[in-house]
């Protein structure tokens, strides 16, 4: 009798082990931004001084009569927990929970044609980036957490290829914020409005 209970317990534990899982992804992009290195009320600070203090920016663009330079740091956390029959060969039932959190630091500095700093803005935030729960009785179709757009490579790698994109994107190349001629954009900026809305 005791042996039977033990074997049943072992089977249940094994099934639980095979059917459930917890997955964590941790991303860290770049190095922390130190805005304190830039004096806020010094009108005479030059591009040379800013580059000496902060190093080359991660994003950069010509903008009107000058330049805009941006430094950024991201820390993204993605946690998912699921219980599924998929491991038993039957993709019939799954219970999932997912959550994403992000910490961001973004420093934007503008310069005029004479390479004098004309403005600066810094933002630091730490908040939830999405998540959800799902019970999917037949087929597991919905992905609850998606941070792919937040961990993409920087746009400089795609600069040349940007002009060879399909027509709507290629025509819009001069307005795209990742081409270096019309401003910069932060990771995760929605493309439904603004400079990409016609693509």
């Amino acid at each position, binding site marked *: 009798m005791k042996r039977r209970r033990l074997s049943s317990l072992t089977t249940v534990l*094994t*099934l639980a082990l095979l059917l459930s899982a917890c997955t964590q992804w941790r991303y860290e992009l*770049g190095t922390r931004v130190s805005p304190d290195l830039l004096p806020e009320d010094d009108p005479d600070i030059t591009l040379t001084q800013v580059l*000496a203090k902060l190093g080359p920016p991660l994003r*950069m663009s010509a903008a009107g009569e000058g330049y805009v330079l941006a430094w950024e740091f991201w820390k993204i956390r993605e946690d998912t927990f699921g219980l599924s029959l998929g491991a038993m060969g039957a993709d019939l039932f799954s219970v999932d929970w997912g959550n994403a959190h992000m910490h961001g630091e973004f420093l934007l500095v503008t310069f005029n044609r004479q390479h004098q700093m004309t403005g600066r803005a810094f933002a630091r935030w730490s908040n939830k980036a999405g998540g959800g729960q799902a019970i999917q009785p037949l087929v597991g179709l919905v992905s609850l957490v998606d941070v792919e757009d937040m961990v993409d490579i920087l746009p400089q790698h795609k600069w040349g290829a940007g002009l060879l994109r399909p027509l709507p994107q290629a025509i819009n190349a001069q307005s795209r914020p990742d081409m270096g001629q019309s401003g910069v954009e932060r990771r995760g900026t929605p493309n439904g409005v603004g400079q990409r809305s016609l693509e």
Partner: protein
Amino acid sequence: MNKHLMVGMIACLFAALSTGCAQYENKRGVEVTWQDDVTRHLVPGETSRKDVLKLLGPPSQVISLEEETVLYYLFERSRGNGVILILYNRMEIETHYDRAILFFDANDVLTDYATKIDEAAQA
């Protein structure tokens, strides 16, 4: 041996054999050629864009503002480590950016520049 116990043991063995670890590396961009021994040849007011292109090669991006031009070099390096224990899986990915930016005036002469090679990424 009890049949249930046998199945349980086989499943446990399968689970144990399915665990693992992972290492990940991803590199994108232009080769890093802006080490200190190269950049000491860069002199604002003297070095021309031609000299820079000869030293550093083609950039990742060219930006223009009327007569001024900017050359931007980027090398992106991601490294990740992970454990896969079926019940608990964890991946950690760190991305570092080696970069150089150089400004040239209307006469193609270097006016400003900055470079950075992320030591943490190389470690």
